[in-house]
């Protein structure tokens, strides 16, 4: 597993999402009431851009006419065919036994911890031979970090 810095948490406030390219894969990072989740941005059905889909709630009826609407904003619906997935797990809700979308471990860490814990391949930087005079800088914000294989 490799940990990748996605964005400062301020870029993905509660209820928002961000779609990013990481290690050649497109994924969506979602903030649900302060909790961060990451899913692959590709629907397992026909390959639609899943993470651009509408967020809705989970509607159940134990018998016809009795409705329970729960978990608003936690069910992602593919923009193409409306297949439903649980943002927290990638689990599908119409065919939970066979269908799920890849989800990744996502967390928020203080910016001060970034250099020690994660890669930043998006920056495309390689350490060169020279070191210029530096000044101490503090990174006060928190950052979203996703763990992906490879």
């Amino acid at each position, binding site marked *: 597993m490799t940990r990748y810095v996605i964005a400062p948490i301020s870029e993905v406030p509660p209820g928002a999402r961000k779609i990013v390219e990481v290690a050649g894969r497109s994924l969506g990072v979602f903030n649900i009431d302060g909790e961060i989740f990451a899913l692959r941005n590709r629907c397992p*059905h026909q390959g639609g851009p899943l993470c651009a*889909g509408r967020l809705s709630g989970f509607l159940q009826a134990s018998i016809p006419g009795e409705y329970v609407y729960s978990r608003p904003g936690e069910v992602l619906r593919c923009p193409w065919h409306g297949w439903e997935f649980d943002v927290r797990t990638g689990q599908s809700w119409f065919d939970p036994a066979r269908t799920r979308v890849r989800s990744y471990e996502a967390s928020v860490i203080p910016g001060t911890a970034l250099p020690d814990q994660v890669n930043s391949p998006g920056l495309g930087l390689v350490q060169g031979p020279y070191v210029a005079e530096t000044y101490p800088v503090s990174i006060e914000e928190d950052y979203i970090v996703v763990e992906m294989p490879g």
Partner: protein
Amino acid sequence: MTALSTRPAARDRTKLAVIDCDIHTAPATKQTLGKYMPARWRQHHETFGPRGPGGAHYPRANQDAARTDAWPPSGQPPGSDLDFLREQLLDAWGIEYGVMNPLLGAGGQLNLEYGAAHARATNDWQIAEWVDHEPRLRASIVVPYEDGSLAAAEIDRVGDNPAFVQVLLSIRTSEPLGRRKYWPMYEAAVRHDLPIGIHFGGAGGGPITGAGWPSFYIEDHAGMPTAFQSQVISMVTEGIFEHFPTLKIVLIEGGFGWLPPLMWRIDRAYTHLREEVPHLQRRPSEYIRQHFWLTTQPMEEPPAGEQFHQLLHHLDMNDRLMFATDYPHWDFDAPDQAFPTRIEPPLERAIMAENARGLYRFGQLGR
């Protein structure tokens, strides 16, 4: 449904020619079609507008029944922005030709003369704003199909323009399509050697199922093949294929899994009831296999791959199946993901492009 690991690489996808037989273009605004109407009808269009029987309700799962990612950056409705349609459909999938089937309501108008004006405007708009700017697109002749003579007049007006490749009806009509009132339309189609394409939807005034009005959109959607079945039975038993032996019918967005048992049942009935329809010279299934073409989206998907092959075997119409995406609607089929199981390459090529190329007489574009 195909597992992720079997998704072909981009280079493989581009090798396979793709002809899309069902693209839904739409006007940019409510005023757009009015620009193509004479003042008399433009005023009616703006003052009274469409009036038809009920039965088609929106939104259908999504606004405009569209993929939620199909709204162009321009803010126009799905299917109304040529640049975005190129980017999201034609270029994205390397589509060689696409047949436009605009479902804008001309055929269902209760005011038949307004329906005729609406159809003329829709057809002129398809040429002026689409085909003239995009050589991959072809148009369908929209007609006020509840009046056979008015429909025939529109086919005669534009039928010699090669930009039009078929006549377009909706499957739910006010009477079964074999009835005599529709025959002048078929006569005109044959005169111009144009297939009649009949698309999912429409409203003819009767309940939208044979069992009355259902509660849910899913019933409307899943039950639509019953309308297709009724139309196939009507067109065959009324004898239109004896009267118009070169007439070609394309069933669009109706599936095809229901057709083999229909042929079994009607052939069986014909052995007992032939006396009632003495104008039929052959078994009903023979007319069906000779005169009908079928588009793929949305196809019935049996749970196991071999069952899909059995279905194709029962159907025995491999040369009549034609790929369609239904873009930009929510039940869009992606060209590399459409089949529920692997299809042998020769058949895949036939369904993805060559059957349509033959029917619509599309040339080979740079291949």
